[in-house]
């Protein structure tokens, strides 16, 4: 009776190992793509700079115009793109795993609205021009909003059902935007400062932002990646997860913490970037399947590639000006979202 059962996995083992090798190879390819995207981001812009000169400018800062462009503008921008993209991709994957909802996305869950409200308050009531104050305000606002949305959406016996979370996020986003509008319209100066923040962009941020928020993102990423195994168990349902020895409450709390840190700091650094966190995990799952041990690192690497690509596209299509990254991602991401709903990827409420 036991013979055929024992035989099956033995035969499968080489297959599995090959698949794992393939996936690991995929990760290497993605890492290569990320390097290529970074190089392109350094070279392409209002003024194209050949890669050789980029390297020269980095290694031997000779004070030439091109070296300055690379050093002061493109390097911060590219690094920002990498950390923001990685954070949003991983946060999106975590959010979707945690809510078992392929439609969950940091932007849909109120993070952008909360950050915007905090920033408009700072612009209106604190007389400051330091970008770091904006960054920390946005971080606090985003974190506060995410906690609020999760609390409202998961309150009570029904728990954090996918539909409730998405709709709680959409609704609270609308609340924040009303409050934001109220403050923003107090005087034209506030309005003028705010209207440029509200489109997410990688441009004109300095390295200090990356340096300050980087540690948070790193901590969030490590925490998130460590959750892969418990999330795999929870994917079978809460009861099954508990039976496999995972504490759903602890996993959810740690996951929520990682998400808040990751997307809070990403939004703080770049402003609202829509849909990256939604589309990337979806694409990744269609590549590597539902195993979170692969989904999470793939999302971590794929998202910055796409964000940098969107940023470069925004620089190229509207030359000599540029299109903000946040707008490019919304216009590419929303159709993906709609297509997913049409394909029936949306869970029933």
């Amino acid at each position, binding site marked *: 009776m036991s013979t055929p059962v024992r035989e099956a996995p033995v035969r499968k083992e080489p297959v599995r190992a090959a698949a794992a090798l393939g996936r690991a190879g995929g990760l290497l390819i993605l890492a290569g793509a990320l390097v290529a995207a970074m190089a392109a981001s350094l070279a392409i812009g209002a003024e194209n700079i050949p890669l050789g000169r980029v390297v020269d400018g980095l290694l031997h800062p000779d004070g030439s115009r091109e070296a300055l462009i690379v050093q002061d503008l493109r390097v911060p921008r590219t690094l920002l793109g990498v950390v923001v993209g990685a954070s949003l991709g991983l946060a999106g994957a975590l959010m979707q795993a945690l809510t078992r909802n392929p439609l969950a996305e940091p932007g849909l869950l109120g993070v952008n609205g909360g950050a915007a409200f905090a920033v408009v308050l700072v612009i209106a009531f604190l007389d400051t021009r330091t970008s770091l104050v904006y960054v920390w305000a946005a971080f606090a606002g985003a974190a506060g909003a995410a906690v609020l949305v999760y609390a409202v959406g998961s309150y009570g016996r029904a728990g954090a059902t996918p539909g409730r979370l998405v709709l709680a996020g959409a609704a609270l986003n609308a609340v924040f935007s*009303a409050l934001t509008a109220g403050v923003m*319209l107090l005087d*034209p100066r506030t309005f003028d400062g705010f209207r440029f923040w509200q489109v997410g962009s990688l441009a004109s941020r300095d390295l200090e932002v990356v340096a300050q928020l980087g540690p948070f993102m790193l901590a969030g990423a490590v925490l998130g990646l460590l959750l892969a195994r418990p999330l795999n168990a929870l994917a079978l349902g809460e009861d099954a997860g508990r039976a496999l020895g995972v504490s759903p409450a602890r996993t959810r709390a740690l996951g929520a913490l990682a998400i808040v840190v990751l997307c809070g700091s990403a939004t703080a650094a770049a402003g609202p970037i829509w849909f990256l966190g939604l589309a990337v995990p979806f694409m990744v799952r269609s590549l590597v399947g539902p195993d979170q041990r692969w989904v999470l690192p793939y999302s971590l690497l794929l998202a910055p590639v796409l964000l940098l690509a969107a940023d470069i596209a925004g620089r190229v299509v509207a030359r000599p000006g540029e299109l903000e990254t946040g707008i490019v991602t919304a216009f590419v991401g929303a159709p993906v979202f709609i297509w997913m709903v049409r394909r029936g990827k949306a869970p029933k409420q």
Partner: protein
Amino acid sequence: MSRVVRAGALSVRWEPRAAAVGVGLLAVGLAAAVFVVGTGDFPISAPEVVRALVGQGDQATTFIVTELRLPRAAVGLLAGLALGISGAIFQSMSRNPLGSPDLIGFTTGASTGALLQILVFGGGTLAIAAGSVAGAVGTAAAVYALSYRGGGVSGHRLVLIGVGAAAMLEAANSYLITRAELREAYEAAFWLTGSLNNRGWEHAAPLGWALAVLVPLALAYGRRLTMGELGDDAAQALGVPVQRSRAVLVAVGVGLTAVSATAVGPVPFVALVAPQLARRLTRRTGPHLMSAGLMGAALLSVGDLISLKLPVAVPVGVVTGALGGLYLVWLLAATGRKGTT
């Protein structure tokens, strides 16, 4: 409990409680409107307003009341009515208390259309109105078409696709705002928040005519909407042409959203909150369009009055947004406690 009036083969059903609630809401809305009319640089007491309205006031007061301030109050009441009814239609159709037109992109689309007129083409009042109607209708058509699959549209899918469309249009709106001159952009932002400032009869009259067509149509389809809440299969088995009714109701609901957005801008939350509050007051099941509409009128009127009485001048949209937010949190918490969606 409902009462029935019969005459021969004809019979009409009415519910005393719902009727009482309706009358009460109408009274609240009208009273708020009277105070709105009385508020301004030149305050007029409520009795004087009423006297002017019935043609007994002095000439100056009558002019201020009927020509300058009454249109604002009328636009508030009518737009509120339209928002309440359209909210009830979409919530019933999506079987979701959050499926209101301001969350599923239609209102955002109206904003995009209006912004294009204000910022890009520099159109006047009429062009802005046309732009916002076109924006709302275009968005709705796109969302409806995208939700259409396998011979029909599911309410659930309509809401989710609407949420996606809303996000995309939101980005477009931000883009337009950042590219415009500060003065124009500031003006556009006021419009985007929903405001009743400077409304004249040229706003109120077209709104009134549009509602004269759309509201009876909505009420006539109200019973089909009620049947739709039993699920598509049961409704169809009971003789409701589900898909055709849904198409008509979407059209009417979008029309109501579009004309109200044209008149007051995308005022948030009235469409979302009015049907829910009306339902709790009347203790009825079903979409009860009329009570939702009257609740919407009362809410927008009262919201306008509050925005006028606040120490800082804020558009009415900020007031309704803030109040609606508190209500929403409560609603989600309450449904959560019950364990339903």
